[in-house]
């Protein structure tokens, strides 16, 4: 098995990193390329850029941003938010993204996952699953879908997804730890890599998540601060987590 991965997540809107509580009161938090480069220097294994507004008007500026990230960074990155078609995904990959993440559009039309896998290869297709109480939500965690997380993850795998990005809406923002029960259930249900997301407050939380998932998404725990990633990496090493040597 490859080494466990630490994946900082950067929320972007209109070409800038933004921070906010549940997409309310967004505040500017810097340049996505510079922050991404700093995370890379601090030992990030990959990055996720999430277009939190995902407006159609913002699409061309997002593609410009993706190209600037690809020119600068030498680690893989995923772009999510507003991917609704094979064309959307192809444009992001052509601009330099390594993977795209799909969420609501795949729930509305699951065949999209099959189409993306056929056209781009499974390794480029991340299916993001937002979950509360074992049930899948759509539209940024606002709307129930009637699907169970485990069932949807299995279907995504059958359709050719390459990874599952599993977010516990219940744990998200609490800093009380990842939802290990949910993460374990999904991880056991599929043979794809699973990225645990939501709830990280300490190195112990991240280490626990990496015990059941193949990667951990890091959002609010980092506070857009690459130095925190460095200390987190050394705390994880002290806890016995085998991270890559980033030198």
């Amino acid at each position, binding site marked *: 098995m*490859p080494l*466990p991965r630490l994946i900082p997540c950067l929320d972007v809107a209109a070409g800038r990193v933004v921070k906010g509580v549940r997409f309310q009161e967004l505040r500017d938090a810097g340049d996505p390329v510079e922050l991404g480069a700093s995370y890379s220097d601090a030992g990030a294994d990959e990055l996720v850029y999430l277009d939190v507004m995902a407006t159609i008007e913002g699409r061309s500026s997002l593609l410009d941003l993706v190209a600037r990230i690809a020119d600068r960074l030498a*680690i893989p990155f995923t772009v999510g938010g507003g991917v609704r078609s094979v064309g959307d995904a192809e444009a992001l990959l052509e601009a330099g993204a390594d993977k795209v993440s799909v969420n609501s559009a795949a729930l509305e039309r699951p065949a999209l996952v099959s189409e993306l896998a056929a056209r781009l290869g499974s390794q480029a297709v991340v299916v993001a699953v937002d979950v509360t109480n074992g049930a899948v939500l759509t539209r940024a965690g606002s709307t129930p879908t009637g699907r169970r997380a485990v069932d949807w993850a299995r279907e995504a795998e059958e359709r050719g997804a390459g990874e599952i990005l599993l977010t516990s809406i219940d744990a998200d923002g609490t800093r009380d730890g990842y939802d290990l029960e949910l993460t374990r259930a999904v991880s056991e249900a599929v043979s794809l890599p699973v990225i645990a997301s939501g709830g990280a407050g300490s190195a112990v939380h991240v280490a626990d998540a990496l015990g059941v998932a193949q990667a951990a998404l890091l959002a609010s725990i980092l506070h857009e601060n690459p130095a925190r990633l460095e200390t987190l990496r050394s705390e994880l090493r002290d806890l016995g987590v085998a991270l890559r040597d980033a030198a």
Partner: protein
Amino acid sequence: MNVAVCEYGAGNVRSVVAAFRRLGAAATTTSSPADVADADLAVLPGVGSAASAMAGLRERGLDRVLRERVDAGKPTLGICLGLQLALEQSEEDGGVAGLGILPGRAIRLRDGRVPRIGWAAIEPGGEAFYFAHSYAAETPAATARSEGVVAIAEHGSFVGVQFHPEKSAAAGARFLERCLSRV
């Protein structure tokens, strides 16, 4: 130093060009067989499906020019699917004939989680590189492995790598620098 990165409709060429440019090489993407023939170093990147990638190479006449380069001893680098396409055959898509630059075939990964995604050490050397693949080479030309999977295969002037040096941070840059220094 002139690096030609083959553009044939199979994936993320921009990152490969950017990685070489960061090292000071004059890298460009091209679909032109003449450019690929003349370059100091030709690079065959690639992600996605073997069948459509091979079709893309043939349509542009790049399959022939890549074979000719290697026959003439000119440095050529295959990355990820670019390594798998260089083999005689792939079992992907119900069986696809490859370029035949390397002996062997690409087979579906059967152990662990597939796709195999993430950083893993290669031996010899012990450095970790970034992998993202569902198929792997089975070839007597292997010169490095990662967890049993062929990580590097070499034959004459062709070097194929299963990992993505352009996505492997400092270790990847050092690898690409060594590729350039051999040219």
